[in-house]
């Protein structure tokens, strides 16, 4: 009996691997996706910027302000493109799209420095690309501190300059390291959920499924053997993403590798269960594919807090985001990889993912049995 089950399992597994290997285009595509995704996200979110175009609005027009501007003029990071005359010009400068940041020096800058009051400098950035603007603000702060120090060396005693930073177009800035965990989630969904769903639904559509379930083979054995190749592929893809992240982008893996693997496996099983559920519920490949892309992939992209900050979205969507397995997966992954937190810290995502897995697996098995008997 056990031997029969093993043989059946092997036979179906071999069959499924043959399907995967025969479909060379899909295979190539699957292995290229991780590389392409990482490169796209990686270079869209690069952190080093040189010669960023900026503008200066100098209300003060004193030697102190001129010397501050001078330090920007001589910097490798910035290129002063424009000198503005009034605050009305600010919006125009941004709208033209050439300027990434504007340095506003108030009228009392000189006075404030001299009488030891906090001098205020305003930095206005175009935060439609939040990562660039964060970086620019960081650079500018350093430059201004250096300038301040040079003033101290000149024996003028000054209070530290206080910055008032205003992020336009996207007040919440997101970490650049988000994309590696996010990419892993997307690829897991594409490879396990989507491919497993499509392969299962196509068998149900073309009738071969009936041949399988009419046989003595247990349904669960058939399904596990069928989706195992996709699980393996998804793990290979995950390894590719992590390797690229570490080698090209220097993403740290601070945490426990075993914990990292556990979380990856959990999410893989969760998206597999969802894939099986979608395949069983939909009657054709097309429906399975569409429901997987629109019902799982797209919400994950939008709501898992990896491209679009969830804090900026309506309350209802923020609530919905808690239902996304990927949100918890990404949270756990980020905490493990970047912060190096241990078992004690990631119990919440792990418990949530496990329960989602149980619910989805239960639902798909229940659907599977009841649908074929109906």
């Amino acid at each position, binding site marked *: 009996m056990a031997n029969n089950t093993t043989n059946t399992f092997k036979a179906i597994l071999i*069959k499924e691997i043959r399907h995967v290997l025969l479909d060379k285009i899909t295979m190539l595509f699957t292995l290229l996706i991780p590389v392409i995704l990482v490169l796209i996200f990686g270079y869209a979110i690069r952190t080093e910027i040189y010669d960023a175009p900026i503008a200066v609005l100098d209300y003060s027009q004193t030697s102190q302000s001129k010397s501050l501007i001078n330090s920007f003029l001589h910097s490798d990071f910035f290129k002063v493109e424009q000198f503005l005359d009034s605050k009305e010009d600010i919006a125009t400068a941004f709208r033209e799209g050439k300027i990434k940041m504007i340095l506003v020096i108030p009228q009392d800058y000189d006075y404030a420095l001299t009488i030891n009051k906090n001098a205020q400098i305003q930095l206005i950035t175009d935060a439609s690309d939040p990562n660039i603007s964060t970086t620019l603000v960081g650079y500018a702060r350093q430059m201004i501190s250096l300038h301040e120090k040079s003033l101290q060396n000149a024996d003028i005693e000054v209070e530290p300059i206080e910055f008032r930073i205003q992020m336009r177009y996207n007040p919440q800035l997101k970490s650049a390291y988000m994309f590696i965990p996010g990419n892993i989630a997307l690829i897991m969904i594409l490879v396990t959920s989507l491919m497993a769903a499509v392969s299962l639904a196509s068998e149900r559509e073309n009738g071969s499924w*009936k041949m399988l379930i009419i046989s003595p083979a247990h349904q669960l054995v058939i399904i596990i053997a069928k989706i195992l190749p996709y699980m393996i592929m998804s793990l290979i893809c995950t390894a590719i993403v992590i390797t690229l992240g570490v080698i090209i982008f220097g993403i740290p893996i601070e945490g426990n590798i075993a914990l990292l693997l556990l979380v990856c496996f959990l999410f893989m099983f969760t998206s597999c269960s969802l894939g099986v559920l979608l395949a069983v519920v939909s009657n054709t490949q097309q429906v399975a594919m569409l429901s997987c892309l629109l019902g799982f992939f797209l919400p994950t992209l939008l709501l898992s807090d990896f491209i679009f900050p969830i804090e900026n979205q309506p309350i209802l969507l923020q609530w919905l985001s808690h239902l996304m397995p990927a949100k918890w997966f990404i949270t756990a992954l980020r905490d493990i990889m970047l912060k190096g937190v241990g078992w004690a810290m990631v119990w919440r995502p792990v418990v949530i993912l496990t329960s989602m897995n149980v619910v989805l697996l239960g639902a798909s098995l229940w659907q599977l049995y009841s649908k074929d008997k109906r």
Partner: protein
Amino acid sequence: MQDNLVYNIVAERLKRKFGDFIAVDDISFEVAKGEIFGFLGANGAGKTTTIRMLCGLLMPTAGTAKVCGYDILTQGKEIRKHIGYMSQKFSLYEDLTITENMELFGTIYRLDRQLLRKRILNIIARLDIRYYANKKVVSLPLGLKQKLSFATAILHQPEVVFLDEPTSGADPLVRREFWNMIYEAARNGITVLVTTHYMDEAEYCNRICIMNQGQIKIIGNPSELKEQHNVLNMNDLFQKIVNLTN
């Protein structure tokens, strides 16, 4: 029918509803071991639903049946070890070769590896398809696909094989060859339950039943039935029965 015959299929007042629609309406029949039993009827008469219930793929709303002595309500698992099935949709894997397909299904049906290889060689010799043995199924002519599908369905030498419109779309020559294979299987003791809407094929069966609107209207040996109803061929018989009952 004699009492000492072994019945491989015994259906008792089988009924199946889908919502308000009654697909199979209270049918009873039995099929003896080694018999070729034909199910005739228009599309939607309830033939496929009956087969699905007998295979344990669908639960009846009422009534029950025994297949190879096992109850379809409770012993579906046992039944699946003793039956073969060929659906009206061609369902071998098109991107795999003939041999790969047969190895897969043979293994699932728990055939010993040596025995399986021997049977595959037999089938290749019997169908004279050495040339196609390592070709992908997608490249085969339709008739050959159907014959191969049947050969795969009885690869494990089941006690009963269910054929759901096995010859639809095939040319007359292929159908003739296909029926030769069915006779061969029956001679080897396999009970055959076949649905068709080709009336000439009905003549090849030991017994037939005509289904209409979920009910069995008539059941018996083709020649005897023709004589009783005073018609020349099965087509006339079918028309007569269906017109009578509509």
